[in-house]
């Protein structure tokens, strides 16, 4: 018995010791686990659970503001709330839909219910860009799985002003048009260089646009459209030395703040995405070509007595002088015959080569993506060369035409136009010589002469030494040139002794008025509009007025005429 009890006692005591050891081991592990968890909780803060889809939406680099050259805001982001839901977390979809539609009457309950019933989706938008009241109303419903995030909404404080340049974005603030699109696509590197990820902010993108000049341009062109009952119009102001575009207006324009932006054909950007036969404005290129190849000089003469016959086509002058004209006379009278003969003297091959050097045969690319390719004749024969010389059968986007004329006047260097701010040094690197310095000098002389005594005299704002060339193109309607549907334009620069700014104005189908004596050619509508624009922008741009004795005599005469008129009135 005793042996048995010993037997039993022995292992029993050892068994008891083991049990105590096991228990204490268990406690030690348990306390260690608690201590470990405690350290984890206090020392390493647990990351808040975020929806991956939502996180992706919020972590985007902020979009830079767009400002004009003087820092005026053209586009910026403001904070708005957007309501979202996580369908997996909503306990009662029907109740949630009922509550949400009661708080937000414009949310479609049926659609919302369908979307909330997708159990696999972790994220849906209930409504984007809501007012603070709506946000609070829904948030206070306290539905699990429903929340809001602060989003950014793009606003354009200047409204319609420069809308064609700035462009616009969609509801996810992705650029759709204009500079906004450039910031997301071609200019993505530039956009990234503006961003500062540390402070989650971005420096503004500085445009070359000057809102004051932009407004004056838009204002005067829109007044001209009303006055001459034109269907559309536009204008560009460009810095001749740096290629910066100070203003670009295309009317009718649109409101980038409006929700729907279904642009009509008339609302497209006429200055970039439209190509036009600019008519006589292109004659400037022909003159520069003839000077540059040494085919003509200032004293050359051309016979403009008879129409120029090529094959079975006849080239006539609009208002023929019917005499032998000198080179300056061909320019100021805008003689088609004289200009066509000049081009034929240069020759077809050299004509093509020159236009290619001007860049007029290729698409002009700027930051604003909506640009059009020039329209060229399919067969380039003698007749095509002759008509292209005076701007028929050859269509370009207006900005391209202006950039070339600016190069002809600034000393012969082509600077690619830009919508972003650019310094003189940066421009000098990009500049390419396309004509000789001496050619440019002669072109300046002709432009100035044409504004003094020629077809552009109504743009000659006395004191600002304006030079210009006019163009009146007949529009092609149903494959034929229409006699009464015209496209009138003015291209010019000032001050002419050393041009700093180039200006282009265009009116589509201006109508004749009694005060224009029944005329609807450029000299009666586009040119006076250009004059008004120059008179208002020249002081802003720091162009100092200077007067010659002739100017003073002209001014005196004007004042006298005005007095006489006032007396009669």
């Amino acid at each position, binding site marked *: 018995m005793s042996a048995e009890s010993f037997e039993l006692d022995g292992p029993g005591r050892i068994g008891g010791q083991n049990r105590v050891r096991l228990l204490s081991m268990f406690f030690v592990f348990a306390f260690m686990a608690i201590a470990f968890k405690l350290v984890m909780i206090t020392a390493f803060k647990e990351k808040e659970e975020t929806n991956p889809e939502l996180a992706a939406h919020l972590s985007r680099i902020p979009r830079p503001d767009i400002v004009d050259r003087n820092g*005026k805001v053209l586009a910026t982001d403001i904070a708005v709330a957007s309501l979202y839901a996580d369908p997996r977390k909503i306990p009662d979809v029907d109740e949630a839909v009922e509550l949400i539609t009661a708080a937000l009457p414009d949310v479609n309950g049926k659609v919302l219910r369908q979307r909330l019933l997708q159990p696999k989706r972790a994220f849906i938008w209930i409504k984007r860009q809501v007012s603070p009241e709506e946000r609070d109303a829904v948030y206070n419903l306290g539905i699990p799985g429903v929340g809001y995030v602060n989003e950014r909404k793009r606003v354009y404080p200047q409204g319609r002003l420069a809308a064609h340049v700035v462009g616009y974005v969609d509801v996810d603030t992705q650029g759709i048009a204009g500079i906004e699109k450039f910031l997301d696509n071609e200019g993505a590197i530039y956009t990234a260089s503006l961003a500062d990820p540390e402070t989650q902010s971005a420096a503004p993108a500085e445009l070359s646009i000057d*809102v004051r000049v*932009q*407004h004056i341009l838009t204002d005067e062109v829109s007044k001209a459209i009303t006055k001459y009952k034109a269907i559309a119009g536009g204008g560009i102001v460009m810095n001749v030395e740096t290629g910066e575009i100070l203003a670009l207006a295309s009317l009718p324009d649109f409101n980038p703040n409006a929700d729907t932006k279904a642009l009509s054909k008339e609302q497209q950007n006429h200055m970039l995405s439209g190509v036009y036969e600019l008519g006589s404005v292109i004659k400037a290129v022909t003159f520069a070509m003839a000077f540059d190849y040494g085919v003509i000089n200032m004293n050359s003469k051309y016979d403009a007595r008879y129409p120029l016959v090529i094959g079975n086509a006849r080239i006539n002058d609009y208002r023929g002088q019917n005499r032998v004209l000198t080179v300056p006379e061909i320019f100021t009278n805008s003689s088609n015959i004289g200009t066509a003969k000049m081009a034929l003297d240069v020759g077809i091959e050299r004509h093509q080569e020159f236009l290619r050097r001007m860049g007029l045969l290729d698409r002009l690319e700027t930051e604003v993506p909506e640009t059009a390719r020039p329209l060229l004749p399919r067969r380039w024969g003698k007749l095509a060369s002759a008509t292209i010389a005076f701007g028929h059968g050859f269509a370009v986007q207006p900005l391209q035409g202006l950039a070339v004329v600016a190069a002809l006047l600034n000393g012969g260097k082509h600077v690619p136009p830009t919508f972003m701010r650019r310094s003189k040094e940066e421009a000098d690197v990009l500049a390419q010589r396309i004509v000789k310095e001496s050619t440019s000098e002669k072109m300046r002389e002709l432009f100035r002469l044409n504004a003094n005594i020629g077809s552009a005299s109504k743009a000659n704002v006395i*004191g600002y030494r304006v030079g210009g060339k006019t163009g009146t193109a007949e529009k092609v309607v149903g494959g034929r040139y229409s006699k009464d549907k015209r496209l009138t334009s003015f291209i010019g620069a000032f001050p002419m002794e050393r041009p700093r700014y180039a200006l282009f104005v265009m009116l589509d189908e201006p109508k004749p008025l009694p005060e224009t004596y029944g005329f609807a050619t450029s000299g009666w509508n586009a040119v006076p509009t250009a004059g008004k624009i120059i008179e208002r922008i020249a002081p802003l741009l720091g162009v100092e007025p200077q007067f010659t004795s002739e100017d003073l005599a002209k001014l005196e005469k004007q004042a006298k005429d005005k007095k006489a008129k006032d007396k009669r009135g």
Partner: protein
Amino acid sequence: MLKLVNAALVIAVLVSGFALYSLEHRTRGAERDVAKIKREISESREAIKLLNAEWSSLTRPERIQKLAEENLKLQPTSAQQFVSVEDLLVKVPTEVPVKLEEEGKDPIGDILEKMQ
């Protein structure tokens, strides 16, 4: 002896517990302050952006022109109205028109004296 050590340990636990708690409390407070200031900064940034946008909208050239046309009798400056500095020099009188110091008067100096 063992009792004394135990008592000391218990007191040490209590003291360190209290110290830890108050430190934690202060840290929480500081964290709250930081979060609050951060929120205020971002709210201020938002407000600045909004005000900038509003300023830009209110100073639209189109709006200013409309207001000026309605309320002011100003007209666009014509080229003839600009005068160069050289032309102005001709009109500067060679003699000072009012000789205050000779008359023993110095109105601005008087104001400054009064302020002192």
